[in-house]
């Protein structure tokens, strides 16, 4: 090989080497692109907004400048733009905008998240509007012309039906030289999870992804969920805080990688503790090393419903168009391929309406699969023996609540309704209705939620202790009192019912032990202590 040939080869190889180095540099630039702290990008469309609002609401602009949106040039108009048909839109400094950003606006970029979220329990949180909870706020606590309890209370978590303010003729009230439509103060501001929006969409992304930084660390933090998942009727955050999971989280918050951009995977990006998001939403490592993609359908991994008076295991029926329905295990499941009528609630012209839609079943997810999906998160830290035994403990508590209190008290209430003692249209007329309500809706849920997330005090003292005490000392006497108000015959009937009930094994303790039982117990103690 001549010297010249060698030189040519050296030149050619150097060229190839440099080209390979360029590929390395490109890969590196791709890897670090999202993690860099870039300057906010103010596009031409947004520069006007930023200039004015920097003076009018400087903190808001600062927050946005700190967001990932700003780094990628996603600015005011991109989210606040309004179509001609958006009733709350108006022309503002040359652009048609709306104050309220809905999930449909976010879906322009986050289509997958929108799809998942809009099928979730979170998006449907506003459908409680006709429930007993709402009766309590609107009727019991409220007045015909003052709905402030529902507005400031229930709806700030469950969401309002957003409405435009109208005058006596029904015309939309407008204000200022730009004729901005005024939103009804009863319905907005509102960041409730299940907000029913003017454009027909359900939900509020802002409920978890607070504007205007939209920091992932907020939605990953348990406090974020604690805004709504707390209190006497569903104290999830309190239960979490007293659990080993919560203790570990607060002790090692710095090790949780809450700030990480992109995927946040349990078992890969962090290990110190699970937050609410870790178990219910986020990705986790599996024994095979793969990750389960995070889902914005928050109920997917829940196998029990702990919400109603009687808990049931819940299967999931998924239809061709992605629509989903929970089927309690007491309800017969359809077969894949069946066409069935489904009841779908929707919002149109500021009204919550319902329609029947025929849909084809495409998939059935049994409760066992939902539980397995949850266990996948648990298995990142615990072995299967541990996790299986935990679920046995948890199931045991739910069964206990159901069998001893939930089912018998509900049966008793149904009988009172059937006998005309209670009126379905007057849900809080009698004392027994209040006691029953708190028995399952407050105390019974506390017990079940406590067991579901390893909160011992909520399981017992705030939970089962309260349930049992009120069952014996308030509920059963109140049943008889309510019956007595109807007639003396009815009183006698329910006295008999209660007496019969108390002869069941689990209630024998109320009457004390028989001499024979006392002797048996004494023998057992003597044997135990070798006397």
């Amino acid at each position, binding site marked *: *090989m001549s*010297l010249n040939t*060698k*030189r040519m*080869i*050296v030149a050619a*190889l*150097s060229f*190839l*080497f440099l080209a*390979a*180095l360029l*590929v*390395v540099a490109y*890969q*590196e630039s791709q890897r*670090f692109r999202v993690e860099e702290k870039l300057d906010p990008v103010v596009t031409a469309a947004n520069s006007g907004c930023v200039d004015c609002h920097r003076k009018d609401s400087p903190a808001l602009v600062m927050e946005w400048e700190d967001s990932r949106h700003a780094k990628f040039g996603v600015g005011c108009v991109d989210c606040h733009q309004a179509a001609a048909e958006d009733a709350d839109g108006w022309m503002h400094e040359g652009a048609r905008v709306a104050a309220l950003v809905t999930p449909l606006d976010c879906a322009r970029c986050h289509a997958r998240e929108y799809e998942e979220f809009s099928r979730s329990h979170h998006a449907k949180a506003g459908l409680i509007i006709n429930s007993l909870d709402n009766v309590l706020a609107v009727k019991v606590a409220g007045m015909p012309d003052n709905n402030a309890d529902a507005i400031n209370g229930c709806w700030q978590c469950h969401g309002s039906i957003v409405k435009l303010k109208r005058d006596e003729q029904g015309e939309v009230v407008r204000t200022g030289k730009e004729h901005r439509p005024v939103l009804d103060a009863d319905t907005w501001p509102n960041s409730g999870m299940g907000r029913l929006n003017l454009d027909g969409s359900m939900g509020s992304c802002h409920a978890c992804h607070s504007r205007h930084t939209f920091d992932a660390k907020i939605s990953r933090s348990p406090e974020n969920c604690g805004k709504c998942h707390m209190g006497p009727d569903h104290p999830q955050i309190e239960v979490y805080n007293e659990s080993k999971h919560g203790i570990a989280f607060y002790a090692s918050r710095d090790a949780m990688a809450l700030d990480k951009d992109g995927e946040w995977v349990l078992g890969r990006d962090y290990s110190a503790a699970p937050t609410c998001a870790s178990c219910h939403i986020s990705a986790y490592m599996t024994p095979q090393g793969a990750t389960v993609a995070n889902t914005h359908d928050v109920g997917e991994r829940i196998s029990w419903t702990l919400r109603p008076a009687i808990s049931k295991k819940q299967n999931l029926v998924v239809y061709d168009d992605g629509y989903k329905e929970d089927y309690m295990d007491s309800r017969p499941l359809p077969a894949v391929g069946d066409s069935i009528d489904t009841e779908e609630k929707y919002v149109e012209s500021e009204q919550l309406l319902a329609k029947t839609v025929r849909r084809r079943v495409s998939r059935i997810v049994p409760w066992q699969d939902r539980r397995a999906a949850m266990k996948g998160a648990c298995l990142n830290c615990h072995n299967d023996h541990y996790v299986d035994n935990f679920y046995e403990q948890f199931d045991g508590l739910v069964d206990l609540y159901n069998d001893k209190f939930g089912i018998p008290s509900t049966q008793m209430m149904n009988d009172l309704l059937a006998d005309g003692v209670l009126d379905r249209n007057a849900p809080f007329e009698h004392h027994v209705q209040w006691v029953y309500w708190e028995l399952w809706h407050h105390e019974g849920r506390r017990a079940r939620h406590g067991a579901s997330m390893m909160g011992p005090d909520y399981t017992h003292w705030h939970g089962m202790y309260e349930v049992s005490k009120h069952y014996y000392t308030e509920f059963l006497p109140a049943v008889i009192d309510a019956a007595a108000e109807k007639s003396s015959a009815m009183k006698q009937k329910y006295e008999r019912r209660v007496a019969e009930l108390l002869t069941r094994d689990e209630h024998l303790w109320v009457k004390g032990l028989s001499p024979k039982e006392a002797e048996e117990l004494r023998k057992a103690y003597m044997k135990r202590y070798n006397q």
Partner: protein
Amino acid sequence: MADAKLSPARRLQQLFPFDWSLLRHAGAEPVPYHLKKWWFCLGGTPLYLFLIQVLTGIALTFYYVPSPEEAYASVQAISTDIRFGWFIRSLHKWSSNLMIIAVFLHLLRVFFSGAYREPRQLNWMIGVGLLLTTLSFGFTGYSLIYEQLSFWGATVATNLADAVPLVGPYLAYFMRGGPEIGPQTLTRFFVLHVGVLPTVIFILLGLHILLVRLHGVTELQFEGEKLEERDRFFRFWPEHVTTELMIGVFLMYLLTILALIWPAQLGPPANPAVTPEVIKPEWYFYFNFRLLKLTSLNVSVVLTGVLLLIVIFWPFIEQWLVKRFRMPQSVSVGLGVAGFLGFLVFTVWESLAH
């Protein structure tokens, strides 16, 4: 007082009185004709890869933390958070593998071309020393990652050391810094990897190259090849240097491509409480690992030691055999082929086994 009229070159000469013509003389070393064939340049390849190891190794040391609590996390940070960290780590990993291959190939070539024979016996022994040092680099470096496999690889290796007759237990205790692998072990491996072994390899390399220069490169002539006297040698500069440069740039290209396609991976972190189902050392220890599986711990260690001693002292053993038993030199080639094939078969066997 310095003479103001002195030229800068002369002034430099005054400040650093070195006879620069010596360098020119060194560069003018005549190189035997056969080195025009690139496969005779494999001695330079490990040197070249070693330089890459030094540079990438220094870069990695900036970020690596040699403590059991932080070692794995720091390697993870190098692979994911540090700019170009994955690339430097991949270069270091691939270059170490290629270096071991190159040293093996160089050894084979020297063996089969008989270049270890008198008067170059000592340089052969130094060369084997270099191979052992390189393998020690590979072993200690792999252990520093502190992932599950490297941890258990280190455990097996120190158990092997334990089985060496007489000194074994002391050697194993010294390696581990205690009766079992612990915080001391990682520190020791780190000091060996970035301090002791580099010093050893620098000394051995210096001696190795010095001896090559003092003895001159063995002249080879192939059958049927007739060379004119003026063709027997060619110049070190620029001819041979260009060949080396060619190999060098090719290696850089190859390493970059390997790093791009197969970047260095990271397994689960070391867990002393959980023994993985499959423990495997790096491929260059497959031979020993297979031997260990086929025999017992003690037998495999003694057998490896004996084989190693034969390899180290082969130039003298061969001389003795020829003198004493009139053994033809071709027997050496046969033994070499058998030894190499044995090594290859054991390595492939182990790589296919689970």
